[in-house]
């Protein structure tokens, strides 16, 4: 081992979280960077859910829509918060898989996200139609 490699190992040990960086081998940096971008895309999805929820409840209060809309908005905000946590945990799981050479784990949050958006869309459509009939 060259002195240079030795220095790199010391620096590698200093990285956090230790539970990730003290396991396995250093993968191709491009894979790590791709994993990082995937996590960031999930964080943006989560931020979009939160923004949608906050916007929805604000509009619902302004124009006096039914409290069902507030309920959907609250659930969207909580789902967004959960997606952000899932993004961080997913990054950790995938980085561990890259370092240990195992298969990449499945994207757990993806089917839940799609189902939640589908349900929210259906309920909101029902609210809009009901409001249209009443008005």
């Amino acid at each position, binding site marked *: 081992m060259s002195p240079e490699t030795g220095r790199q190992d010391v620096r590698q040990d200093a990285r956090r*979280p230790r539970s990730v960086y003290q396991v396995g081998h250093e993968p191709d940096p491009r894979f790590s960077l791709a994993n990082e971008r995937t*996590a960031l895309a999930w964080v*943006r999805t*989560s931020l979009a859910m939160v*923004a949608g929820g*906050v*916007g929805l409840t604000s509009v619902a209060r302004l124009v006096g829509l039914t409290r069902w809309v507030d309920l959907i908005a609250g659930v969207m905000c909580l*789902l*967004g*918060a959960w997606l952000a946590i899932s993004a961080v945990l997913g990054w950790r799981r995938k980085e561990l898989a890259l370092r240990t050479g195992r298969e990449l784990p499945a994207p757990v949050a993806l089917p839940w996200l799609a189902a939640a958006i589908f349900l929210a869309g259906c309920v909101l459509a029902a609210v809009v139609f009901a409001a249209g009939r009443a008005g």
Partner: protein
Amino acid sequence: MARDPGLQPERTALAWQRTGVTGSLVGGVGVLAAAHRGSEPLVVIAALLAAVGAAAAGYASTRPQPALHRGLPFSPWGRLVATASVSVLVGIIGALLALAP
């Protein structure tokens, strides 16, 4: 990693910028929503979160790209947790605003 023709470090830095800008926008939306309900503590918290989002966007441009091109070890953990926390906290504020009577 010698010169990467896929420009992965640059793409990652840009992804950080997009996320940081989105984070500060969502914090701003939280400020407006909390102000509309007249909740001063939530306005302050949301404003702080917007600042964290903006800081993440700014910090992304300071990322050591030449070092990344050489494949030096680098961990996104701290920034990732900070940025995700913005979303978690604004999400909780939004849920409080939505579900409050």
